[in-house]
């Protein structure tokens, strides 16, 4: 865990030490920064776990690989969430609302499965709810990524004999995770950009 922890810390520092644009009053507050960071950490971390489950278990690294993905995803999500929350309360509110819907939908799916899968219990309903919340916090990116991953996986499965069914499923889930995490990063960058970044003044003289 030492190496993973160090890698996470470095990633986080890299994100947090980049100077953001000037803060504008009323755009982000303490609560939205905290909430954005917590939600980003949770959503991206959970997406990274889900997305890495199958690809990682096709390697000898197995669970270690899942851990690295989870820590990296959490770190990116945390940094993006803090930036997002710092820039815009509205962004965080939207994502929190999405996470709530995702929690409800995921729990509903879990409840239905619990009735048909013999060894599923309440922990599994909660786990489906938790996954739903993670997806719901960044739905567009996750859905686009999932669709792209599924399509690519299906094509590769048909074209390449050594590309197995599990690889296709893994690609779909990895696509969902990458799409979801990317949407955190992109939204954070957009939000900070819309606040206004540092101005670069170039001394240019035009002679006519």
């Amino acid at each position, binding site marked *: 865990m030492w190496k993973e922890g160090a890698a*996470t810390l470095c990633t986080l520092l890299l994100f947090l030490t980049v*100077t953001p644009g000037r803060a504008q009053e009323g755009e982000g507050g303490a609560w939205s920064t905290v909430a954005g960071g917590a939600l980003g950490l949770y959503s991206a971390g959970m997406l990274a776990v889900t997305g890495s489950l199958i690809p990682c278990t096709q*390697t000898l690294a197995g669970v270690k690989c899942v851990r690295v993905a989870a820590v990296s995803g959490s770190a990116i999500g945390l940094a993006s969430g803090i930036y997002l929350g*710092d820039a815009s309360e509205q962004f965080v509110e939207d994502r929190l609302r999405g996470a709530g819907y995702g929690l409800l939908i995921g729990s509903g799916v879990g409840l239905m*499965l619990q009735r048909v899968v013999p*060894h599923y219990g309440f922990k*599994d309903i909660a786990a489906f709810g938790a996954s739903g919340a993670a997806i719901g916090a960044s739905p567009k990116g996750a859905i686009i990524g999932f669709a792209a991953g599924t399509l690519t996986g299906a094509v590769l499965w048909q074209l390449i004999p050594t590309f197995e069914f599990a690889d296709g499923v893994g690609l779909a889930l990895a696509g969902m995770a990458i799409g979801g995490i990317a949407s955190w990063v992109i939204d954070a960058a957009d939000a900070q950009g819309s606040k206004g970044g540092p101005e670069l003044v170039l001394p240019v003289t035009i002679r006519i």
Partner: protein
Amino acid sequence: MSPVVAGFPRLRFCLLVASIAAVSGCTADYSMEPQPAGPLCPSQSAALGTADSIIAWYGPGQARDKRKLGEWCKTVGPSVIDSLPSPDYGNWVIGDSLAIVTWNVNVGGGDLELFLREELDLDCERGQPTRGRHTPHFALLLQEARRQSHAVPIVPDGRNVPPRIEPDPWPGEHRDIVDIARGCGLALFYVPSMRNGVEETDGTREDRGNAILSTLPLSDFVALELPFEGSRKVTVAATVHSQAGDSLRLVNLHFSVSSTFYRTLTTGNSTRLRQAQGMVEALSIVEAERSPDAAPSIATTAGGDTNTWSDDETALQQLRIDFPESPPSGGVVTRAPFPTDHIFFRQDAERRIELIDGSYRRTESTYDSDHQARIVWLRAVLGVGK
């Protein structure tokens, strides 16, 4: 740094630490250990459960695993050991080949008697086993073998009992694994893993598990309860010997197809890896107990339904390391579209038993099971002391 962000350095650090702690907590440790001698489950204390007292049991040491396995164990009947086959099968002499078969028979759905006739030239369907000209010595490693018996206990409800699996269609006489083995004069080692439904059929109850059937005498009976995932799984092992005294341990494994979603998330999808590692660890304890001062003294072949989704799954990669002389899998699909069934092999230190190159294959037919079987051929090449 903006004032808001800069105002929460400890918060950021705490969130980071919490995330790392949460992720690093997502582990599923296991450690295998010998179980107390004697019958393992309450149902096996019955008179019919004497076989269980000569089986060496191993299982995970964690409290959660023990509790879950104990609850499932209460619902199954005793193990069955018929250590001696019909004497007509004779000895395994140097140079003779031995077929190792792994097949998931889908709780009696697979037509085992037809399989024996078509693949191994042994006809058991006329009440008396009739060997063909080409009947070899063989050992069958069967998963989801069905046993029907009054010794399977009555349970009050469906807790810790999986739903009944009844093949559809299901032609034939529906003989259970004990009947078939005895009808064919084969040695048998059967250990139930789980119940096959709560309900009674024909006035008796059923359980299902792993069975080893062999034309050679079986000895040194071992049962390994695997770390609990979605259901109880018991790997069974027994030993056969060539006439010259060479030994081969047969290991019949069946891993879980999936765990609960909660465990899948919190263990990093390590369901089958945990079971594979548990099995290998238990086998190494068995080896150490049998020959504490020496390198592995016995060749081992392990086969079964690993329920793997792909040929590269971590559990398979790990098993290929632990069984370095395994035949190449080749990504062969045995339960479309998944490559679920595999045979692994490792030689003893003196390499007295070898795998015949190019002999590893899949049967063309499923014989009414939902899996195709895989077969590999071994050969005893040296006698002990030669």
